[in-house]
């Protein structure tokens, strides 16, 4: 499956980047209290953290809150972090924990209203199309429970191996497989309904 393999390679590349020389130097300086160096570390990882948080939480505002909390926790514990370890993996783990904590505090999600976007089929600017895609993604993910969502985001969208997902979410691999299986079934159902409604809307026009 080429698409799936590419996703995994992308994540691996991101993780390995932190082991390069400049990143290590920034990490050492940030540990020593250099605020500029910590700023550089944030710039390197902020987009990925916000993207992960957005996928897990479903709202950009919540994602920014989660990212802020993540980097604050990193700053607080940076002094005890061993710079020989993988900083990106450590940061990622913190982000997942922060998102899990925030998701617990959120109210239960409202039932999904499957609405076919009226803009489908019309000529759109790139930003509008992307905005539409983001809405679709969030609608699909909102059909899942919080645990299913976390499992499928980490496994299918972030490309992390099942064993590592189990460690991040603090449960067994068999539990993760069960949640991923259930999540993929629901995504398939959502996709089938979306295609059906899209076809009906196309026929109606």
């Amino acid at each position: 499956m080429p698409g799936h393999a590419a996703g995994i390679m992308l994540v691996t590349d991101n993780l390995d980047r932190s082991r390069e020389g400049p990143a290590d130097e920034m990490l050492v300086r940030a540990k020593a209290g250099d605020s500029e160096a910590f700023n550089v570390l944030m710039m390197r990882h902020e987009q990925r953290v916000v993207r992960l948080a957005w996928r897990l939480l479903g709202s950009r505002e919540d994602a920014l809150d989660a990212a802020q909390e993540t980097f604050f926790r990193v700053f607080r514990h940076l002094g005890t972090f061993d710079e020989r370890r993988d900083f990106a993996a450590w940061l990622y783990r913190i982000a997942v924990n922060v998102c899990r904590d925030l998701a617990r505090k959120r109210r239960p999600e409202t039932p999904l209203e499957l609405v076919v976007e009226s803009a489908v089929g019309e000529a759109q600017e790139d930003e509008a199309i992307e905005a539409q895609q983001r809405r679709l993604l969030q609608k699909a993910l909102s059909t899942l429970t919080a645990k299913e969502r976390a499992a499928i985001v980490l496994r299918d969208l972030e490309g992390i191996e099942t064993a590592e997902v189990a460690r991040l979410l603090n449960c067994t691999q068999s539990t993760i497989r069960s949640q991923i299986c259930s999540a993929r079934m629901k995504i398939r159902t959502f996709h089938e309904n979306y295609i059906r409604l899209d076809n009906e809307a196309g026929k109606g026009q």
Partner: protein
Amino acid sequence: MSCTHITEIIPLYVGNDLDDAETERITNHLLSCDPCRSLESQYRESSAWLKSVSMSDVERDPLPALRVRVSQRIDSANRSQQLKAPIRIAAVLATAAALLIASTLSLYLSASTKSVPEIAIVPGRVEAGPAAEPVSPVRRKTRSRQRMLPIVPSPSLTMLPPTPLAPGAHLSAQLAKLPTSPVENSVRIEIQTADPTIRIIWLSSESGGIE
């Protein structure tokens, strides 16, 4: 392998989440089962669709506002730490002072209470003998430290061993058997201190027997 079982685990098959043996069994089954092959195709399409729409949510622009928020929060945390530091120092000093005062007080109290000897009244034989040498204060080691017992003002003291009491005997009867004082109408009171070698004898010239 039944189609029912395949239906349940095909979501894991398309994500490459099964072991090699089970993957091979499903692959062989799909070669000859159209409905299961159709189901597998649907799962692959939905998985690819999910990945394609997720590419649009990638944050491409830097997030300076996020960095500002983080910096502000760090500064706020540092300020509150600096405010708390003098309060913590004052609390530590106050605790140390209180402990010092408490330990000094307890030492003082223990020293003053141990200077009073234990006193018990026991019957014993007394003789008013010749003027004895004044009893000098006895130095006695108590728990690795020496202390001075108080000097008992008395004209004379004779150290005598106590006379054992008969079982059940009343104290007054026992005392009545003791030799009388050479001084008539006198009252004699003996006090045995905690030190078995020292007994306090009080002689009074008032009349009246001991009740």
